[in-house]
């Protein structure tokens, strides 16, 4: 409950100027709003900018530090500009093999969870059936459960069935599919909910078979949602540390490598690979946005 009262404090600090404004003379109504609105927007905007700095600073620091030539084993403190790490990103240990493993797992988990989750999303949004509320809860729970619970319980399942020796690639994939499924269902479901149902009716009026309606009308309209779900599950999988840790056996994915590196040495290459991930994602999303704009304009 105290989290709720805390939000009241937030608002109090957020709008200290407003309290005074309430007592401002009611005359000059037209002019009163202008400057005060500016002040309020200013306080709020400053807060927002500061929070954005807080949110984005680590990404900027990561990018800057990828051009660092650190003293010693830990790339924590800026020393000297260097592009060495960018020219030789794979030169430290097996860093690129670990990244490769993460990408492989990510692709398999993405394909499986997108297919299964999309099917489930269609069932959930197009059909009313008796077990629906219960299924809703089951789909929601993995998103709400702390990751360590999923990881630790999965470990006991694998340990008591196949033994710790046989854990590896596929047990990681199983865990990743498990926690990606719910996100895929939610994402595709929200896209389906936003669809205009009259479009499918129109297709049927034009003598399209249910199959044709699905392939030529429904699927293309849902496709952006499915693509978003696929990207999300890929990102979740590649970035996952906790569940992976408990299901990995002796496999080392990129997050496991980074986590372990903090104990031994943090090479600049870690920041380089992080920056590459960021640049690739940003270019991809920018590309999709531009493509969407162009397509919309052509229509």
């Amino acid at each position, binding site marked *: 409950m105290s989290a709720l009262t805390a939000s009241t404090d937030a608002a109090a600090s957020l709008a200290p100027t407003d309290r005074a404004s309430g007592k401002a003379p009611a005359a000059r109504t037209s002019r009163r709003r202008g400057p005060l609105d500016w002040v309020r927007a200013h306080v709020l905007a400053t807060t927002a900018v500061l929070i954005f700095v807080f949110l984005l600073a680590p990404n900027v620091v990561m990018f800057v530090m990828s051009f660092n030539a650190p003293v010693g084993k830990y790339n924590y403190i800026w020393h000297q500009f260097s592009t060495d790490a960018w020219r030789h990103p794979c030169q430290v240990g097996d860093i690129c093999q670990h990244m490769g493993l993460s990408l492989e797992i990510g692709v398999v988990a993405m394909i499986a969870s997108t297919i299964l989750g999309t099917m489930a999303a269609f069932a959930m949004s197009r059909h009313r059936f008796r077990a629906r509320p219960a299924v809703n809860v089951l789909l929601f729970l993995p998103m709400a459960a702390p990751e360590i619970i999923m990881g630790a319980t999965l470990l006991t399942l694998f340990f008591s069935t196949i033994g710790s020796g046989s854990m590896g690639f596929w047990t990681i994939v199983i865990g990743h599919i498990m926690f990606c499924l719910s996100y895929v269902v939610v994402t595709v479901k929200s896209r389906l909910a936003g669809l205009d149902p009259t479009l499918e009716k129109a297709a049927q009026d034009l003598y399209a078979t249910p199959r044709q309606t699905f392939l030529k009308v429904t699927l293309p309209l849902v496709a952006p949602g499915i693509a978003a779900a696929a990207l999300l599950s890929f990102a979740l999988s590649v970035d996952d540390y906790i569940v992976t*840790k408990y299901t990995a056996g002796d496999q080392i994915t990129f997050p496991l490598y980074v986590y372990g590196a903090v104990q031994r040495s943090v090479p600049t290459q870690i920041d380089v690979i992080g920056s590459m991930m960021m640049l690739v994602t940003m270019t991809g999303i920018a590309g999709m946005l531009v493509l969407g704009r162009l397509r919309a304009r052509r229509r």
Partner: protein
Amino acid sequence: MSAQTVNVGVPPAPKPIGEPDLPERRKRNRLPYLLLAPTLLWLIIFFVVPIFTSVSASVQEGSLDQGYALTWRWANFSDGWSQYNGQFGRSLLFAFLCTVFCLLMGYPLAYFIAFKGGRWKTLLMALVIVPSFTSFLIRTIAWKTILSDNGVVVHVLNDLHVLNFTSAIGFTVGNHVLASPAAVVCGMVYNFLPFTVLPLYTSLEKIDPRLHEAGADLYCSPLTTWRRVTLPLSMPGVVGGTLLTFIPAVGDYVNAQLLGNPNTLVIGQSIEHEFLQDSTGYPLASALSVILMAATLAIVLLYVKKAGTEDLL
């Protein structure tokens, strides 16, 4: 989590339950179950069943070499609690602080984007998600650079004598920010802030801005308008946001490991240590995770009941 999932695990058998009338209707009723079957099976086998295997593991006894046997050793729970109650307390405290700070920072941000964002709304929301475009571990390590002893943050805090105060209450250690509870909470707030902002934004964005004008027309000060109109309408977002922050924060131990010190150990670190580094720790670690699961579920149910929002799902 067990109490709730037990009910959930039973119903979704892929058989038609519809009233036995027309065969056509029966066929239509089977389709959703066919579509759902793989997902449900996956979640039941790899999410629900593991809860039972871990409860079973938590009352076993043995070691990695000799194997583990189910001996109904309930003492694992009391052992785990007496050995690690400090870690449990710290996990809950850190998660609570993280949730409070996330709300304090997330509400103004979501409010700003929803009501002042204008045509930049989508772009600003994208900026909230941009950090997650790269590995969260690397970003957490970047905090080591930002909060390092010769960084700007520590200098400013030192000059303002803030660190003297925070060190006095045990939140930082000496003139450093790193390797302290403050750094852990900072990292957690940073990692979970988007989880607070997204639901808050969703519920704030639905509010008609004309309601603010109506409040002003009825001689409410902006603050009163916020308290009596905006806040009640955004409560689903507040409840959803705090839950989405608190639940993962309780189990998080990456921040405590990377930004903390040996005195900031949280329960996640103990569970991982017992599971993966201690050859006899398997039952104890299972007991710890069962306790964590039950505690989290109890807190969440209590909170949801108190907050009284039923349309969460």
